[in-house]
């Protein structure tokens, strides 16, 4: 598995010296056997070697990462891929408005009639040298994330008032993701932002989307890989020109639609569910349907798409 991922990186054209460094990192920082179950096995691979190289270099240098991008740009896929490549146990921490220090660092609990401290995910991650994925970090209030400041900067400590102060394991890294401008998101304050190296996640390129489809659906015919990738590109272009909103430019929706087609639903209906119906405005939906109908015929059957 581990070798497979490194081979994937080689195939993606990642510089060999980076791959060597990853290998050294893995050999130097061993994972405790009781935590091995937390090392992820990615379902999707992240495609895009520039982003890969940026992320790997930053992590090797001990930096934390902030991945910024609109939906379906692969933020979580990359985070998962990175923990797999570096062979680190992963903690997923979803941020929301009510996230506070107790849900991050830990809280009191009773054990055998005694009040004890129950470790939160950040604490655990720091202790076991894991990768902590801080998902949608800008959903939380800035003051409640302030407890992370000492964790994320050069001090690398967690100080729990009334209990203990621990130092963060050398192998620990934090990877935050955020979607700027979504409903409910706020500006990240500068103090927090300055503790991350920031990667602007690009929209998936047509070439990489084709690779993704090819790998994901091995029975998909070549010409329909072209068509689905082309469809996504058409929608992206339309949205970039402000003719439609981003609601229908939905990679997750496209992949789910292909799954439904694979199960036998008519392609046009599957795309309607996965893409067109995501926009609730009648006119916009008509525009999206026009784009679909210029790629996929109304009468197309499953066996024409799949081998």
């Amino acid at each position, binding site marked *: 598995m581990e070798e497979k991922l490194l081979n994937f990186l080689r195939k993606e054209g990642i510089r060999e010296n980076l791959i060597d460094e990853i290998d050294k990192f893995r050999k130097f920082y061993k994972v405790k056997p009781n935590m091995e179950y937390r090392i992820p096995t990615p379902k999707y691979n992240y495609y895009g070697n520039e982003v890969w190289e940026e992320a790997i270099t930053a992590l090797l240098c001990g930096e934390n990462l902030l991945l910024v991008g609109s939906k379906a740009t692969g933020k979580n896929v990359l985070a998962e891929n990175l923990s797999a490549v570096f062979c680190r146990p992963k903690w997923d921490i979803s941020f929301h408005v009510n996230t506070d220090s107790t849900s991050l660092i830990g809280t009191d609990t009773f054990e055998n009639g005694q009040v004890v401290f129950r470790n939160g995910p950040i604490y655990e991650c720091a202790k076991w040298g894991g990768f902590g994925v801080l998902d949608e970090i800008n959903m939380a209030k800035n003051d409640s994330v302030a407890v992370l400041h000492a964790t994320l900067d050069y001090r690398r400590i967690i100080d729990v008032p009334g209990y203990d102060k621990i130092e963060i394991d050398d192998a620990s890294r934090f990877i935050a993701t955020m979607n700027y401008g979504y409903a409910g998101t706020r500006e990240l304050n500068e103090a927090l932002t300055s503790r991350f190296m920031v990667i602007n996640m690009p929209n998936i390129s047509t070439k990489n989307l084709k690779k993704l489809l090819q790998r994901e659906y091995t029975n998909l015919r070549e010409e329909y890989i072209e068509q689905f990738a082309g469809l996504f590109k058409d929608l992206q272009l339309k949205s970039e*020109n402000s*003719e439609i909103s981003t609601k229908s430019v939905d990679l997750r929706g496209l992949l789910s639609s292909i799954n439904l087609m694979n199960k036998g639903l008519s392609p046009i209906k599957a795309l309607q569910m996965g893409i067109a119906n995501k926009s609730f405005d009648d006119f916009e939906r008509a525009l999206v349907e026009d784009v679909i109908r210029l790629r996929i015929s109304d009468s197309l059957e499953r066996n024409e798409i799949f081998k």
Partner: protein
Amino acid sequence: MIIKSLTENNKRALNIIWNASDNYYIDPEFKVYDESGEPDLYWNYIIGAVHKYYDYSLLNSFFSYLKTDSDHEFYEKLFWIGLENCTFNKGKAERPVLYSLRKSYAKKVLKGETETFENNLLNVINVAHFCKVVGKTPEISGNALNILNDLEFDDKLNTEEIVFKMDQIIKTYFRFNYGQYEVDKKEYKKNKVSKDMQKHTEYGEEKLSDSEIKVMSDLYLDSAETSREIYFEELKQKVKKSVRKVTVEKKDDFERQFIRKYFGASIISEQKTHSIEKSLCVGNHKNCHLHFTRGKFDDEFGSDVNAIYYNKTLLEQREINLEHFNSNYIKYKNSIIKLTNRIRNTMLAYFESYTGRSEAGKLNAPKVWRNIYVNDNKIFTKVFNNDIGNISVDILLDASASQHERQETIAAEGYIIAESFTQCQIPVRVYSFSSLRNYTVINLYRDYDETDKNNEIFNYKTTGCNRDGLAIRTALYMMERSNYYNKILIVLSDCKPNDTQSIPDTGIKQEQTKYAGATGIIDTAYEVKKGINNGNSILCVFTGEDEDVKTAKKIYGHNFARIYYPERFAEIVGVLMQNQLKNL
């Protein structure tokens, strides 16, 4: 195939064409709708793809050349049959769906479900062409067959070769109106040259002239009107000679009447207007007057030709504003959604209350042990209120003649802001200002509670001058009288104060200074500062030319946004609003 422009489905057809051409900047001459007026997917694709695969400028000049014949529609349609053939062959590899789209279109043709052409030959060729598409042998022979064979261009031909081939077809089989063409060509060239020159000179004269012309025409109207009034006045004086003493007031009445005629009935009593004038029309604005209206036609002037004419122009401008908005519906609607989200988000993220642990407040019994064992004093819970109090937004549109060229855009922008705040349940009031003679007219479109009246903003029409200082002073005066806690004023202006009515000089000489240039700017900036010092937020969405950006900065400081790209309107205004809301 109906080639015409329908506004309703126009946008959809355009979107198909843009999609096919991968180019969202083209403005195609041809669009295709089916019998029910719906855009035809296949043909619009072909039009878009022609733009993609061929040099359309060459084709375009050929189409113009065809237009020199009175029967040009016939040649155009014939040419499109040929173009369909080669474009399909070029595009089919990229989009296999074209096979089925083409076939289903061909079936429609054979069933007679598409438009039949007036010209029989065209019908025959069209049917024969699509007969071949479905794999049947067409039942034609002779010249018609030859034409069809020549017409079905090979996809290996480039644009020049296609144009050449089409020209050959026309020359071989038809009698194209050469003479006409030659003459026309010369004339066309001549026209083109003179038009170009005209364009050049128009440019040379600068945009300034346009607004100047508008001001001049206003003034002209104005003076014509005045002379008539004088005429009336004279008549009146003849009837009633004894009223000399009250002429000053009479004059005021006449002026006011004229303003009412021009802008619509007053919404407050004359007495109240006078009392407002007393407190506002002082200092630099002494001798000025105010008029508050909703632009509604004053029935008192039901038989007055001028009043009816003004009202008509107002309604016409409303139509233009609405049409502009509708033709850019998607863009503007997206702007509203974006801006609404931004405002709502700021309100959500910054102003919600939250409950937290505290050293005082409501005792949290389960946590009491912490105080005893771990010395934690925070065993109380307290609601931290982030409530900033209610907000109101006033939108002030500059309706002076200098904004004449962008009336539709400003109406749309005003509408976007008003609609976005309305959707966030924030009360909005929208009005415009302009000055004519010594009256500054405030035209109210909607008040705070009239949430369903944002449409009235499309009544926006520019005219006359602008006395920004007095307008802002009046707006602030109106805002002071509302019960909201936080008051925001958004001014959409080109920041070019200019009023023919001077400001009274305080010097010894009775010389008067014009309310324009530095004088106007300083006065406006002063009013803005005063408003901010009194606790209001004043923002400006700058709508003018580059050269006046400096002025905007002088008046509004950092609180102004310049819209370079209309598509980015929502983002830019959104950031401005966000910063303002955060600082409340």
